[in-house]
């Protein structure tokens, strides 16, 4: 266990931001925290990182690390009048971490930032800032990394690159990575395990693939001459365009449908699950 939060609650005046949230993270895995804006994700992360004191509950860390957790809350923050290298050096020195040029350059390279950039970080793109934020979070070799809404403000390429980087850090460095987002697609791609948080409560947890599958009620299936399929008629469906239909079918049955369509010599070129957000955010009975 790298980090464990037990029964964490926090209120701001009369507003309850977090109600008895518990979670547990292991080395080498990416944990997604999925919730709409205002669900309590940032409050949860701030408590885990020690920025907020919970009203109830406690956080247990793996004490073998000088710095148990590294993280970025809301957006990466640094001294925008300093260069990436200068920022990294400053953050390294204040915590007594290795601050030799070679070590810091290695860290910049690890997150995919050019070591040759010497201009102030205010000139950096959002994607580069996220990477620098991760480099700072990685100083002093933490056991876990907490990233709050890291995909916000990134273009599709930036999202892809960040997803690859996060997976690499978990798999190659053995970090436990906690990542929050309100974007289902991104969290689905990056995480192994998922916590769904709604209105300050963790309402579901489990393997990401499984939780997502449970929330699929239909698929968008595209194939030439799909309209002639006899099999399709036995499913509730609606054509969105000439070759694409929205078919109501569960994740357990989709395999059978695809196989059946192939038997009718209808060859699918895309089959995209539609995740029912309401179902995903519905408490398990």
């Amino acid at each position: 266990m790298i980090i464990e939060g037990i029964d964490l609650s926090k209120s701001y005046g009369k507003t309850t931001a977090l109600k008895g949230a518990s979670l547990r993270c292991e080395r080498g895995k990416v944990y997604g925290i999925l919730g709409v804006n205002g669900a309590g994700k940032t409050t949860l992360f701030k408590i885990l990182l020690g920025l907020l004191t919970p009203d109830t509950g406690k956080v247990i860390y793996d004490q073998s690390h000088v710095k148990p957790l590294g993280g970025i809350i809301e957006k990466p923050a640094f001294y925008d009048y300093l260069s990436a290298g200068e920022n990294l050096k400053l953050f390294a020195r204040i915590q007594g971490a290795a601050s030799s040029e070679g070590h810091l350059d290695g860290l910049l390279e690890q997150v995919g930032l050019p070591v040759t950039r010497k201009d102030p970080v205010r000139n950096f793109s959002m994607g580069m800032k996220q990477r620098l934020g991760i480099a700072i979070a990685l100083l002093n070799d933490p056991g876990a990394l907490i990233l709050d809404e890291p995909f916000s403000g990134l273009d599709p390429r930036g999202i892809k690159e960040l997803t690859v980087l996060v997976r690499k850090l978990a798999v190659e460095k053995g970090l436990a990575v906690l990542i929050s987002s309100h974007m289902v697609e991104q969290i689905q791609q990056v995480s192994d395990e998922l916590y769904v948080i709604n209105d300050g409560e963790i309402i579901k947890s489990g393997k990401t693939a499984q939780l997502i599958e449970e929330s699929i009620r239909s698929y968008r299936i595209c194939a030439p001459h799909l309209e002639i399929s006899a099999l399709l008629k036995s499913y509730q469906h609606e054509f969105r365009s000439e070759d694409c239909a929205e078919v109501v079918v569960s994740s357990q049955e989709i395999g059978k449908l695809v196989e059946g369509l192939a038997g009718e010599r209808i060859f699918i070129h895309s089959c995209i699950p539609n995740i029912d957000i309401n179902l995903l955010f519905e408490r398990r009975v």
Partner: protein
Amino acid sequence: MMRSLLWAETYKLFKQERTWYAVVAIFIIEVIVLIGAYYQGSNIIDILLDNLKESFYFEGELLNGNLLIYLILNSMWFNFPLILMIVISGLLTTEYKDNTLQAILLQPVSKRKLIQAKYIIATLFTVAMVLFLCVSAFALSYLFFGFGDLVVYLDELNFFTHQEARNRLISAFIAGMFPMVFYSLSSLTIAVFLKDTLKTWIVSVLFLIISNVLLKFDFKVSVLNRFFFAKLNDTWQYFFLYEIPHLKIWVNCLVLSLYIAALSFIGIRTFIKNDIG
């Protein structure tokens, strides 16, 4: 860790453009005082002291380096502490604004040591700025206006020879460090409470103005009239009384140091207690 934090605070302070603007602003104020004195000063002094010149013998020009240093010294009433308060409060408010305070506290850094480092650097920076003001005032004033006797009106007209004037001016700059540190740390403490840059500036300026107003205010209570903080901020002026009240100056500086310690204690304690973010 404290040494690293002190290094980091100093590094950030001198890497920020705001700090250098402040240094330039202080220099500009000095230059304006000198230029103003050059073009208008001698006429005014001649009018003021025309009668006295008939009765007394003055060594050198009355509009001399010592008088100019005294005029620059008087920027410690408002201009100089105002600039200091803007720079010093920025040690914290910019960190709140840019969220870097949160980024620092996400590292294994002690909250107590971080804020203590800011208070220490604020004090050292203020002392360094007073020294800068002092050295540049002496250098520019003597360079362009030479030496001479100093005439100061403080309840009465006082005349000091060049050497005595120089010693009194140096002592006044040293004593002036105490109220300047007090104002600087006040702005830092205000920043701890308000966090926002603009609000901190407004409240700091208000605090400075009220302090200056209260200096002349009669509280009708002798202890308040003697030891209320606002009453201690003109201690540096005592060096231009004919008889220097050394004991009173020492006591004032000591009491002001206690105020500084109390301010720092309140600021540090509040910062530690408050959640960040």
